[in-house]
Every structure is written in structure tokens, then in C-alpha cells.
């Protein structure tokens, strides 16, 4: 069941991105999509609107970049609960640290190992 909702919700979030690009004749670029979805996810999460979606769709809500924003925002909230003001600064990046480190390490490694096509 969770696999079905993950497919539907995850797919729909991607459709929103596709429509944003197609209906603006690609004036909304790749960078705008990535930045916009992470920020939107963080804001929705802060307002408490994203957690219900995660409970409904699991990875369907966590795998899209809105989920990355959600992890950042929830990390900051959890940080405040455990460490107070320090958590305001440390919580978000702490929660996202694994993803960021993976992206940097794997990104750097594969960018060096492979040669671009053509």
C-alpha cells in the first residue's frame, strides 16, 4: 500500500516540476526547480503541512527534493528541542549531513573517474 502511495505522490510532485518548466517555456530552469522545491519543502515542513504527506506516502514525499527541505527543517526543529539556540544553527545541516556528504564525495569521485561523452 505504501508503495502505491509513494508512486502516486512522488509521481505527482515530479509532474508539478515538469509543468513549471513546460508551461513557462523553460524560463524556469533546472536550478530554479531544485532551489524552489527544496525551499518549498522546508517552508511546508515548518508549517506542519509536509509531515502528513510523509506519513501518507513515505519515500514518495521524502525522495523528491521537497523531502530534502523537509529533512532540513525538521532537523532544525529537533535541534532546538535538544540543544536550544545551538540547534538553530546545527540542527538542519546535521540532519542533512549524510545526503550532502554523499553528494560531495560520490559527485567528486565520479566526476574525476568518468570522462564526459562527446
Amino acid at each position, binding site marked *: 500500500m505504501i508503495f502505491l502511495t509513494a508512486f502516486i505522490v512522488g509521481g505527482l510532485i515530479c*509532474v508539478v516540476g515538469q509543468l513549471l518548466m513546460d508551461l513557462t517555456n523553460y524560463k524556469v530552469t533546472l536550478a530554479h526547480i531544485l532551489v524552489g*522545491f527544496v525551499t518549498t519543502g522546508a517552508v511546508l515542513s515548518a508549517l506542519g503541512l509536509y509531515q502528513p504527506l510523509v506519513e501518507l506516502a*513515505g519515500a514518495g514525499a521524502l525522495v523528491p527534493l521537497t523531502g530534502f527541505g523537509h529533512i532540513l*527543517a525538521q532537523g532544525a526543529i529537533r535541534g*532546538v528541542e535538544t540543544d*536550544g539556540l545551538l540547534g538553530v544553527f546545527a540542527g538542519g545541516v546535521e540532519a542533512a549531513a549524510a545526503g550532502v556528504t554523499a553528494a560531495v564525495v560520490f559527485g*567528486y569521485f565520479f566526476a574525476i573517474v568518468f570522462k564526459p561523452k562527446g
Partner: protein
Amino acid sequence: MDVDFTKPAGIQRKQYRDFTDQINPKPNVLVNAIWAFVVGGIICTVGQGFLNAFLAAGLPVLESGAMTAVVLIFIAAFLTGLGVFDDIAKYAGAGVIVPITGFANAMVAPAMEARNEGLVLGVGARLFTIAGPVLVFGIVAAWLTGLLYFLFR
């Protein structure tokens, strides 16, 4: 419509934009949306499989989500290196861009192209051409969330 070079630069720019809008092929919105839905849905379903595995291994929810992201980032970075990611993205569009796989691709693709500019200012810097702004906006949003929660909880 053509660009009139006697007009001021601002008007020339608008004329050029109108011109390119005219001759650029219009995207097939419905077909693209279906591709994005199916491929994006498949990636999230695969992600759900990893998420379940990490939850079963005893990780809390946020950590399981983070580890799922790690796995998908690895796969996307690898496929970008092979050049396969671009082939998929041609059809799937936002279906592979909006999931965390798009973040990994946006790091590896510009960095690969910059190899001959050196390992520091080439690959090292270009990894963050698009990822940099994403982190800036994401971290500022998270910081604001934490600050507001700290002040008004």
C-alpha cells in the same frame, strides 16, 4: 519577427525572446507530464524499498530518509558519469530532476565538464554551480525554521 538593431538594447532583447519563443518547438505538455509521473513514481517506489530496509534495520525515520537519499545519490552520480542519466532525462525530464537524483546529477554533470580546468577550481568549484544555491536556500530556510521555533515554541 526579427530583431531591429536600431532599437535600444532592452527592446532588442524582448524582440529576440519573442523570436526564439516563436521558433522553439513547443513542448508536448501531456506526454512530458506522463513521463515525469511514471519515472518519478518509479524512483520514489524504489526509494520506498530502501527506506523500508533501513527502517527494518532499526534506523529512526529521518535517518532512514537520509540513508535512502545517500543510496539514490550514489546511483544517480554513477549513471551521470556513465552518461546514461542524460539519456533517461531526455524523456523523463522532471521525473529524474525533482527527486534527489536530480541534485546528484546537477553536481556531477558540470564538474565532469570542468576536469581540464583542474581538480580544485575546476571539479571542486563546479560541483557547487547548482548545488551551491540549493544549499544556500535550503540552509537559510532551515535556520529560519529553527529560529522561529526557538522563539515561539
